[in-house]
């Protein structure tokens, strides 16, 4: 029996009767949720047309709850893995505060609630996109890909990339090129971000038998892939300018932070300390900063009314 399988048995043996509200809150992966909501806000702000403030808040609430539901269902299924990894050992299920079945019930209830409320109070397109995002994260990433292929976070990253499209569709009831460009930026950003993490958490993934790229293909290949995906991310970051929905502030931010992101990925590629991986740790932080600031620039231009460049490519 594997360590993960033994842990699964011990994890499901707890009663969960002492679970507190903060345990349930931790199931929602609040830090992931905050980035999801933020990127959805950008999609919502970028969309043409008017949306009543109450509808916008409802849409963001549904996206937040949907993301939380995905997190809870992921923690329920991955409780055995989480209890093998130092990064996730403190989560409520490995700690014995909650059972996996309770977390499943909580996640399913919230997922159905979020999609239903989105459909009833916002519009059917955004509800369908939200349902697709939750299903993709839980079924495709968590249940199927995560334990089977080193491409898990590449393909699974689509779930985390979709919130700007949901935000946009909450306003327009449809999809268009600009939100899909934002989706593409997050999609291309995800591998460099998570592979940086997996470089300095490799022993965790080995113990949990998760086929992350450094475990399966080695650290050298992972470093090379990180550089490739960083180049792709920063290059895709210029698309909003070329397509005419971002202006000078965004361009300056993408050039400055994109250069920093890229330089740091090259430092990871040349890393000598493969034990502590200080450059990968730094890249992990810089990748979050890059995504946050680039999206904040889109938002700032929308709010302040900075005129975007004329499109060089027809969108």
């Amino acid at each position, binding site marked *: 029996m594997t360590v993960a399988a033994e842990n699964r048995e011990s994890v499901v043996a707890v009663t969960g009767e002492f*679970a507190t*509200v903060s345990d349930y809150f931790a199931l929602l992966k609040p830090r992931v949720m905050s980035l999801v909501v933020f990127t959805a806000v950008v999609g919502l702000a970028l969309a043409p047309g008017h949306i009543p403030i*109450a*509808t916008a808040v*409802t849409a963001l609430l549904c996206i937040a709850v949907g993301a939380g539901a995905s997190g809870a269902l992921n923690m329920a299924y991955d409780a055995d893995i989480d209890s093998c990894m130092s990064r996730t050992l403190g989560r409520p299920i490995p700690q014995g505060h909650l059972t996996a079945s309770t977390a499943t019930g909580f996640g399913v209830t919230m997922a159905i609630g979020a999609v239903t409320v989105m459909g009833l*109070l916002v519009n059917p397109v955004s509800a369908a996109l939200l349902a697709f995002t939750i299903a993709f994260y839980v079924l495709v990433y968590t249940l199927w890909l995560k334990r089977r292929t080193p491409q898990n976070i590449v393909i699974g990253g689509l779930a985390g990339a979709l919130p700007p499209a949901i935000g946009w569709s909450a306003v327009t009831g449809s999809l268009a090129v600009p939100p899909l460009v934002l989706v593409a930026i997050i999609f291309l950003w995800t591998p460099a971000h998570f592979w940086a993490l997996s470089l300095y958490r490799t022993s965790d993934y080995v113990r949990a038998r998760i086929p992350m790229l450094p475990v399966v293909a080695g650290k050298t290949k992972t470093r090379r892939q990180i550089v490739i995906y960083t180049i792709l991310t920063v290059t895709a970051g210029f698309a909003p300018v070329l397509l005419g929905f971002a202006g000078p502030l965004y361009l300056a931010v993408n050039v400055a932070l994109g250069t920093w992101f890229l330089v740091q990925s090259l430092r990871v590629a040349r890393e000598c300390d493969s034990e502590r991986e200080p450059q990968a740790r730094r890249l992990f932080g810089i990748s979050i900063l890059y995504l946050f600031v680039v999206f904040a620039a889109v938002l700032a231009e929308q709010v302040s009314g900075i005129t975007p460049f004329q499109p060089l490519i027809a969108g």
Partner: protein
Amino acid sequence: MNDDNERQREFERARKMRNYAIAGVLLFLVALFFVMTIVRLGGHVAD
């Protein structure tokens, strides 16, 4: 015996907090649906 009483108190405290949280969520949903109904009715609210 004291341990049992302490566990019982801890269990009841956790359950009480969960119940308050569920009540809060339900009240919030009632308020949300009310506000959104008014928003959707818009100018036709007096019709």
